[in-house]
């Protein structure tokens, strides 16, 4: 069943983002889009390996993570359109997606900011003994902020049930790793900490799934956090729905990676019948988009709510 679940996830993400690409120029979705396209396999594979109750946090490039963890598109699109029916009633937009009821605690626009939050969540889970795993998704750029190093140190020191998922696309915004890293390998450095390190290409959701399963098994045994490093290729620009290859990376590079496209790879492994059935997800997406477009914006008073939790104003 896993292969079908995985295909369902990567297909949903790809389709949802393709629709965003088409609709974004209409300027009705007024939220900066950091597209996941090309990286679908990582979120899909990791989330498939996790339990529903497990918790995840991500960066501002988290459409794939949201859709993998929740499987829902109504609140997703409504939030993109800034509508009252969005998960955060339009307060969050694309960069701060959250769905705590589905275990997505939040996604953050400060690249390393959520890593320490995930570590604290993992600490609480260990303390409460609820067997929940926390997975934090971040890009290769986040590693350059101090919070990453502080956080991995703390997690390893305290032996916390956490997966560090590095989604490495080789670029921080438009700056390549060669201009940013004074060392060769992220995984090699991570391996010096008391954690389990895995490194794979992040284009095949089955590989990601199997790697994550293996990591979870080992973590159960030796109680050490896991660091999973997945390479992938970001199909689109840092923010927005265009490509701009010539500006900072050659198109040939993209063509090479395109040969192992996360959606195409899995499509070949499912039966035609199953694929057609799954591709009917299009209907779900179209329904969500039209619901979102016709939904009202939140009233102005909504802007002033939720600064503080107030007992009497539930």
């Amino acid at each position, binding site marked *: 069943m896993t292969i079908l679940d995985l295909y369902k996830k990567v297909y949903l993400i790809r389709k949802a983002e393709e629709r965003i690409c088409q609709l974004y120029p209409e300027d009705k979705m007024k939220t900066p889009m950091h597209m996941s396209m090309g990286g679908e396999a990582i979120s899909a594979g990791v989330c498939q390996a996790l339990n529903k109750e497990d*918790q995840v946090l991500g960066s501002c490039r988290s459409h794939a993570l949201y859709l993998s963890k929740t499987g829902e598109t109504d609140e997703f699109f409504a939030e993109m359109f800034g509508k009252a029916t969005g*998960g*955060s*009633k339009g*307060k*969050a937009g694309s960069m*701060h997606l*959250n769905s*705590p*009821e589905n275990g997505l*605690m*939040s996604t*953050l626009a*400060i690249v390393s*900011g*959520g*890593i*320490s*939050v*995930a*570590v*604290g*969540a*993992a*600490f*609480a*889970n260990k*303390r*409460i003994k609820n067997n929940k795993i*926390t997975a934090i998704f971040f890009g290769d750029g986040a590693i350059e902020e*101090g*919070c990453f190093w*502080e*956080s991995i*140190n*703390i997690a390893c*020191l305290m032996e916390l049930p956490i997966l560090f998922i590095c989604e490495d696309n080789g670029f921080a915004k438009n700056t390549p790793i060669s201009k940013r890293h004074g060392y060769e390998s992220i995984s090699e450095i991570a391996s010096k900490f008391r954690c389990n390190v895995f490194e794979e290409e992040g284009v095949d959701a089955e590989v990601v799934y199997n790697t994550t399963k293996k990591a979870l098994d080992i973590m159960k045994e030796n109680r050490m956090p896991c660091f999973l490093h997945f390479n992938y290729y970001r199909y689109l620009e840092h923010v927005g729905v265009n490509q701009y290859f010539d500006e900072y990376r050659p198109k040939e590079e993209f063509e090479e990676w395109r040969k192992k496209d996360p959606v195409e790879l899995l499509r070949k492994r499912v039966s035609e019948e199953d694929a057609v059935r799954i591709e009917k997800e299009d209907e779900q997406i179209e329904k969500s988009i039209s619901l979102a477009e016709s939904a009202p914006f939140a009233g102005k008073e*909504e802007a002033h*709510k*939720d*600064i*503080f*939790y107030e*007992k009497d104003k539930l």
Partner: protein
Amino acid sequence: MPEKKKRIKIFFMRKISYKQAINEALIQEMERDPSVFVYGIGVPDVKRIFGTTENLVEKFGEERCFDTPISEDAMTGFGLGASLNGLRPVHIHERVDFMLLAMNQLANIISSWRYGSAGKMKVPLTIRAVIGRGWGQGFQHSKSMYSVFAHIPGLKVVLPTTAKDAKGLLVSAIRDDNPVIVMEHRWLYYQEEEVPENLFEIPIGLPNILREGKDLTIVAVSWMNVEALKAAEVLKKRGIEAEIIDPRTIAPFNDEMIIRSVEKTGRCIVADNDWIDCGFGSEVAARVSEKCFGKLKFPVKRIGFSHIHCPTARHLENEFYPNAEKIIRTAEEMLGLSPADLSEEEFYSYENKFKGPF
């Protein structure tokens, strides 16, 4: 069935110090609620954060009272994560200067977490930060910075002055389902007063009149209440009755009591324990000017740190901090009085500690 005996709540009062009051609040809240835990750099070490974390690790174990790597930034996000999963963390910074490393977590992440989730999540996080002044602490060990935190929506900021407030406000902070920063002035740790032995809350957002008077309102923050009290004692000798109001909470800021007082006195000094420019004192001055404009007999005056960095040498350091004398001189100016001879007055200093009571 025998009738259940009615429990009579008896409030045992006894004299304890400000730091003992903090310690007692922590111990009693940890006993009451197993989700409360206390952590931070040096929390269980030999010094025990000036004695405020005494006996915690012995009573509750390392699981609920622990030391951390010197990672202020990540350990602050850590508190947020733990609070989201149902725990009630109390994170302690031995000096507020160190908390500045966590500004990203505070300003970008913690403060907006609930808002970004449109109210789906709660952040019951308490952060204690020690502020201000030993001698010779210099410019990276002696800041206050509270107006910076109060500037950010989504953070509550409280500054207890009395031992009773230290206990009651910390209890409220721990029980609050929002991020609360509790800032404690080191020099207040020694003062003693009657504090209830049982658990009690002092509501966040409720100011306190420390002294009643009709001629002048002094709004003082944290340690400056001690200086204001001394100033009031000296001014009384010339028949001037100063009213001292301790806001206790500066965010969210409730100005009602201050406005009522200034409507009565027509004069207002803000004695801040922080830099003046763009500070909390400026906020008070603006609100008083807006709301009491027609009733003011003199423009609102602000007192606070000089706009320099805190120098280390004592005689230079004296140039940095405001004190009772500064309040007296300002009051005299506002009341049209000639400067009194203060040579016989005894003021508080590092050596001459304020022991209370208020």
